């Protein structure tokens, strides 16, 4: 800087200023996409591939059957193989889909799907390439009349373009489908946030899917489908004005073919007719006849304010494909050994112009651990969310619900304690995640309110079950109580009278089963049958126990 011969320093700096490729950005910031550690990386690779497979199958109305195999190569090297029976991918698109970041069909549309940004699978490919140096292997076939295409792909981290290492046609006995093989650095550990858990939860929330999973220990688990009913095909919708942001609006204004602002508004947004469009313009103090290309930044900002001031009906909700109360319950029954199941599906609601539906299911009792905090399974568009439980509005809503009313333990605003699994599912054309790694749902008031309502609906069903159960167990306890008291009373009476204890004991035990005495003990006509069932069962057990002796 002190050198007066030199040019201003900015020129020097300019030499270093250049475009950063997305791929390069990723290599430095892989945690943003969820590849922060080996264990999570393995999960992310599986998750991205499975999400894509399921989306593709459903879109082409095929009942998904997905096989996942994880092979331990050495140390921290793993091979992930995912194969689906989906529609396949045409040859030309394979390199772009798997080896170009931010390439996909989903980002530009407002439609309920698992993937959203088109980053996922290519990020997994890039991660594998960075950690093992090996390209991803893709095999895909679109129909019985065509041969399968095989690619080995790398990503050029400078240009974010696919590099085809190898390309050939192959025989494949599958009529249609896609198979991807990625080698990557990972770590296989069971438990929460593991691949195992992710696939199990996927099976719970997607009862129409069959998953065949082989883990690195060569153990195979098959999650068979519980229904042949595919979820409704989600419809694509135009954005609702309430959800529009300035940048998005400016983009749309630039690329529209409409010639007036009024027609722009009606054609680009849902629920906006000519009248509403006019009203928006009036509220924004902008002429409806303005050419979209002439709308300045200031005007666009006014337009957004105008939209907020205008009453616009909610977006259509038929674009959503919820699981439904019945299938939700089926999914729970299929994968969780509980004694009580319930589920509820809320009517559609809207946050920031995006329609969404909340569904909640509860599995209670049975083999679910008793004295632990309830297990919360979170799902967004049928995808399990395994990380950042604490940061998620689903967790928050559950903690802010008063579970004591439903017969569970809860200290303050925390996750309730009891043998319970709570499933929360949000379907939306655009799920608001707190970060790109799609782990937690953002805290929109509308969303929290809906989750709470759904949780309460299930809570009430659970509550009446828990109460009934405790009533019955109270009755059994009382019957047990008398069984304990009888020897004591017999003993006292024997001492007082000098008679034999055994006779008194038998006399009392005989009375315990007399109907009028039973009535005294249970003191409740309504649940008499339930009690009797339990009680008789118990008696049978006792009998069989005593028989040999």
């Amino acid at each position, binding site marked *: 800087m002190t050198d007066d011969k030199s040019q201003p320093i900015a020129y020097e700096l300019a030499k270093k200023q250049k475009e950063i490729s997305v791929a390069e950005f990723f290599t430095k910031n892989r945690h943003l996409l969820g590849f922060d550690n080996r264990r999570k990386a393995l999960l992310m690779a599986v998750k991205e591939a499975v999400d894509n497979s399921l989306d593709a199958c459903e879109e082409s109305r095929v009942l998904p059957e997905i096989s996942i195999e994880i092979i331990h190569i050495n140390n921290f090297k793993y091979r992930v193989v995912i194969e689906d029976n989906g529609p396949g991918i045409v040859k030309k698109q394979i390199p772009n889909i798997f080896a170009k970041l931010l390439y996909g069909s989903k980002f530009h549309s407002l439609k309920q799907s698992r993937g959203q940004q088109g980053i996922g699978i290519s990020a997994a490919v890039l991660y594998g390439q960075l950690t093992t140096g090996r390209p991803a292997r893709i095999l895909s076939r679109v129909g019985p009349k065509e041969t399968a295409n095989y690619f080995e792909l790398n990503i050029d981290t400078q240009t974010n373009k696919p590099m085809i290492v190898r390309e050939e046609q192959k025989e494949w006995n599958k009529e249609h489908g896609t198979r991807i093989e990625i080698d990557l650095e990972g770590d296989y550990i069971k438990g929460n946030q593991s691949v195992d858990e992710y696939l199990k939860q996927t099976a719970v929330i997607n009862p129409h899917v069959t998953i065949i999973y082989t883990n690195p220990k060569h153990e195979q688990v098959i999650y068979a489908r519980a229904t042949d009913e595919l979820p409704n095909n989600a419809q694509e919708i135009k954005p609702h004005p309430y959800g529009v942001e300035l940048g998005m609006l400016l983009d749309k204004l630039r690329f529209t073919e409409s010639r007036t602002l009024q027609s722009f508004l009606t054609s680009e947004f849902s629920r906006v007719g000519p009248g509403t469009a006019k009203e928006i313009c009036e509220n924004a103090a902008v002429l409806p006849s303005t050419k979209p290309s002439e709308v300045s930044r200031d005007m666009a900002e006014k337009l957004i304010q105008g939209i907020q001031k205008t009453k616009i009906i909610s977006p259509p909700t038929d674009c959503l494909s919820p699981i439904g109360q019945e299938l939700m319950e089926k999914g729970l029954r299929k994968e969780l050994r509980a004694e009580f199941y319930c589920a509820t599906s809320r009517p559609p609601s809207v946050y920031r112009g995006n329609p969404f539906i909340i569904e909640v299911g509860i599995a209670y009792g049975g083999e679910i651990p008793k004295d632990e905090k309830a297990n919360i399974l979170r799902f967004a568009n049928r995808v399990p969310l395994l990380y950042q439980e604490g940061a998620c509005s689903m967790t928050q809503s559950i903690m802010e619900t008063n579970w004591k009313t439903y017969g569970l333990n809860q200290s303050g605003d925390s996750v309730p304690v009891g043998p319970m699994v709570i499933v929360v599912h949000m379907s939306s054309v655009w799920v608001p995640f707190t970060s790109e790694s799609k782990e937690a749902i953002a805290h929109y008031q509308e969303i929290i309110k809906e989750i709470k309502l759904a949780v309460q609906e299930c809570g009430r069903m659970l509550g009446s079950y828990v109460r009934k159960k405790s009533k019955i167990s109270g009755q059994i306890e009382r019957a047990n109580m008398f069984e*304990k008291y009888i020897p*004591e*009373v017999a003993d*006292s009476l024997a001492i*007082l009278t*000098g008679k034999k204890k055994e006779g008194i004991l038998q*006399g009392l035990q005989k009375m315990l089963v007399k109907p009028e005495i039973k009535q*005294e003990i249970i*003191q409740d006509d309504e649940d008499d049958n339930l009690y009797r069932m339990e009680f008789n069962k118990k008696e049978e057990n006792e009998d069989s126990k005593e028989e040999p002796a």
Partner: protein
Amino acid sequence: MKKNKKETEKALEQLGLKLVADIEKGKNPTIEFSLRTLSNVVFDKQSKKLQLGEKQQQRTFFNVGHAKKFLQTLEVAKVSKSLLDVDKHASLRDVFYMAKRTIPSSNINIVDEQTESDKAIEDLELITGHSRELLNINANKMGSVAGNVIIEDSGDSINWAKLGSGGWSIPSNVENIEFKTVKAKYIIYMEKQAVWERLHEDKFWEKQNCLIVTSQGQTTRGIRRLLQRLHDEFKLPIYVLADFDGWGFYIYSVLKFGSISLAHMSEEHAIPEAKFLGITADDAINYDLKKHFIKLKEVDYTRLKQIADYDWFKKNKEWQRQFKMMKDFGAKLEIQALSSKGITFISEKYLPEKIKKQEFLD
């Protein structure tokens, strides 16, 4: 009401036989005995004592509400029988510990609190018609007496005038005490141990030729029986010195008429001629004690109302006047308020004056 050991043993056996007979008949084993609540306590105007009414309660075994109590009643009956068998006495506390055991292969204790076993013992008295003492169960010693009296207890001769600062501890069973000499004109029974100590230190009993007796809080049965015997056998008037509050009044009430929960024992305990010496509402004015008033709380008002509504106080104008004055003051007084006049005020002025003037409430 002298019953001997044989009769007590017989009564316990009767109870057992009745229940075994029920069982043999396939009948829900049931014990029937008088109801022990205010609703079944009547004030007998003739004897001026509280007595149990006609109402009976049933305690059946196969009944969720009764079972535990049934069990406890039989447990203490068993304990009593075992005590009688070996001719030993146990205290209420002992009985509690004997019954406080866990039923095998369960987590249920037969009793958890002493109040439970105490209640069971009281019930057993009613059921068998034999008092606790006859069942060989005693209460702890509570309370002291001093004065010019010589007694014989279990072969020992005891002079109540020569027992130092503590006086004679009154046992729970005074049935077998023999009075050898009694030199006193009256007895003052006081609620507070501290006041007793004051009077004892001042040799009040010597100067005034009386007996001073205290308990701690509620008057135990041993003390009540002792007072009754001294009153009946030596015609000694009994004056009660208690706080000016609902609980103080009730101490007097129990001594005079009998207690609600032990109405069945009134015959052996109540002293209808006992008089209330103080502290009265008039004392508060006459001795200028108003500055030591303690404001009445919600519970005080409730208790006061209960007492005022008791049959045996209801038609007593003098007492109703006291209750009304307390309500008007909105305040109560402790005996110790008298100490503000000087430490010996109570023994040198207040008591002699009140007794001289015969200023009592009846």
